[in-house]
């Protein structure tokens, strides 16, 4: 197995990595990071291997996702970035043939532990999918869905939370007059923001986005990106993207994946300007992928 690079990069303490990155990024305006010095870890994977029946999709992945930052997963199609993302809220459980080894820690607790209630985990780790998937219900009910499942039925509380979530997703002004309209009647970009509102209504700790803009036009994409920059103060965001420009625009940290391996993790600017691995530089310069 050809993973020397990754092993060289990741098992070392995250903090060293970060500080090294920060030294290189000296002079950048991102004062918050500079001051923090060390980042708090939100999600950590330890020797994560994932198999779909006989085919292995993830090879010994070790990553640490920093808290309250935007982390982007990039890499060519089929490299396992979506699969890795779906490990964080146990979405892979739905696939019968999927088998997982290793650990995924959320706030230092293993989410694959027997005692973990998957439904509760998914409330803490929200997810937005590639294609907008609003429910065929009203806009209001879409956003209130998770709350109703939690057992919130108080009208006032629901209305307040729905409004806050829609404002948070920068959709409120566009839909406030038609909350009873079907969510499927919105445009693609609006639908995707509705889905984001639906997720943040539950106040999750982490928001996973699986190529959220791949089905959207550039203007809608710009809006979503703008939204992500606003949301990163409140949530830990992990975004899978095909689009390297997008990763560069929105993320603080970037993980490059290839063939099921986590090849290189670094702060975004460093990774794009001075990648350490040959595979990374080959990919970002467009030699493959």
């Amino acid at each position, binding site marked *: 197995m050809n993973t020397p690079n990754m092993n060289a990069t990741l098992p070392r303490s995250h903090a060293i990595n970060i500080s090294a990155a920060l030294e290189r990024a000296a002079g950048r305006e991102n004062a918050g990071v500079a001051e923090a010095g060390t980042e708090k870890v939100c999600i950590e994977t330890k020797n994560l291997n994932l198999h779909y029946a006989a085919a292995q999709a993830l090879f010994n992945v070790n990553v640490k996702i920093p808290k309250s930052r935007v982390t982007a997963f990039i890499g060519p199609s089929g490299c396992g970035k979506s699969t890795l993302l779906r490990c964080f*809220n146990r*979405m892979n459980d*739905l696939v019968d043939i999927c088998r997982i080894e290793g650990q995924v820690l959320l706030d230092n607790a293993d989410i694959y532990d027997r005692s973990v209630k998957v*439904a*509760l985990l*998914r*409330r803490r780790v*929200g*997810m937005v*999918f590639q*294609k907008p*998937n*609003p*429910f*065929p219900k009203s806009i209001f009910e879409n956003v209130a*869905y*998770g709350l*109703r*499942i*939690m057992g919130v039925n108080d009208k006032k509380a629901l209305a307040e939370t729905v409004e806050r979530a829609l404002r948070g997703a920068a959709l409120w002004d566009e839909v406030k007059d038609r909350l009873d309209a*079907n969510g*499927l*009647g919105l445009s693609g970009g609006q639908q995707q923001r509705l*889905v984001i509102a*639906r*997720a943040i209504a*539950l106040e999750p700790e982490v928001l996973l986005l699986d190529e959220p803009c791949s089905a959207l036009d550039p203007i809608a994409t710009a809006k979503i990106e703008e939204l992500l920059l606003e949301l990163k103060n409140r949530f830990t965001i992990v975004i899978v993207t095909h689009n390297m420009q997008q990763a560069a625009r929105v993320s603080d940290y970037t993980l490059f994946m290839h063939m099921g391996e986590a090849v290189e993790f670094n702060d975004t600017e460093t990774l794009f300007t001075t990648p350490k691995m040959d595979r990374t530089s080959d990919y970002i310069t467009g030699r493959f992928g």
Partner: protein
Amino acid sequence: MKTWIKSGEPWIWATAGGIAIALVAVLGVLWLTAARGLLHFWPAMVAETTYVEKDGSRIRLIGEIKEQEEVAVRRLIESGFKIESTDKFTTRYLLKLGNRDVHGFDFKWYPAPLLSEFTYPQDLITVERREWGNFYGHLKAVKENGQVVAEGVAALPELERRIQRASELFQKIFHIEKDEIGDLNYEMERLRLKEKKLQLQGKLDEPARTGMEKEREALNGKFGALQARLEKLRGEIGRDSLSAEVMNGQIVDVPLEKVAEAYRPNAMGLVDKVGYYFRKLYAFGTENPREANTEGGIFPAIFGTIMMVVLMSILVMPLGVIAAVYMREYAKQGPLIRIIRIAVNNLAGVPSIVYGVFGLGFFVYFLGGSIDQLFFPEALPAPTFGSPGILWASLTLAILTLPVVIVSTEEGLARVPRSLREGSLALGATKAETLWRTVLPMTSPAIMTGLILAVARAAGETAPLMLVGVVKLAPSLPLDGHFPYFHLERQFMHLGFHIYDVGFQSPNVEAARPLVYATALLLVLVIVALNLAAISLRNRLRETYRGLEGM
């Protein structure tokens, strides 16, 4: 030619032809039943003519011309008619002569050469009787206690007035017999069962016995009073009669208590006829049958059909949906589930009479018998649920239509996109919550489609019903004013069986045939109405979950 075939045009013609044939078949059925059935209610003219008997004597005929057909003269001569004619063909007429009690027959064919010209005298009356079918004749007089009170021109208005009075009395008697005495009988029976129950439990002590005796006496007192009132009304209703001259010159008295309606069809204008027509049509849909179902209305059959289908829907929906949800959502997809699925599909092909036999053996005798033993021991040996009834009929049909509902629900479940399930799960919903809040609502149009197919099949089904609850004539509806209002153990009437009964089991098939068509048309209309209701519901659901296809 080859290019024409290659152009694909024959294919278009073939498909369009298929549709055309289907349309023609459907419209043909509707047209046939409508034409034959609906004309029955139009007031027919009553013709008068003379006929040459075999011995040369002439007799008078009075009746409605029901049918006419071309027939070979030779055949008529061979069968004994004395016809002198050079024509090869001639017409023969089917006359409805009525007065079954006087002549002994109702319908008869007469060849045209032996008949004189038809005339339509204005004073001929048609009397619809509650027994013995129609009566035709020249109205002569109206009598009260055997004494003539009106004759000639004055007779008809007097007759109408007195029929009105007799009808009101008849309604009163009917009400007392059916409702008030029915209520008393119901109370009596309840009392008897209560006594029996106490007896079975060994709790029938003296105070209870005297209390019940008192109640029974009170009921008997009421019953006596009703009997007296009934006696008086019966005396009153028997007061009047009409006398009329029938075709053989005899003067016949018809007591007005037997008369439902009398009118002069030959003197009626178009407006009168249209009014009469719609009145009869309405009565057909709202009244009880008379004369072994060959006359009167078919309301109990309509009611029974609809109630059975509604009950069936209520029973089959949860069963089918739950089975489909398990097979599609929870069960591990493997050979076992595949075998079950094949078995379910094959169930749809089992002949319906087999379901009837199963229903009789399992539901009626086993389940019903057990229920009787457990809950109604006081009524034994008379069965309560242990005999065919509407509940068992509905359950049998529910089993019969189960495969349809399962299959379409499964297809609906398969169509709900994975992305929506994931969306729901990602918000912290459990699988059950996802099913309940998102997947099943989105499957509802497909479930409705299954229900539509099930309703269409169930409403038209007849064979199994004969075994598990349908009867020729049910004494009371399965829904009435007595607690607990729904009497699911009762037998009921059904349009499909009614068609069979009237058309093939009736003593007077000729008279009943138009009713068969009318009933068939009504059955089709009932099915269409039930289907339209389900379809509109489905369309509303589809509207709610539109946009699904794009995902």
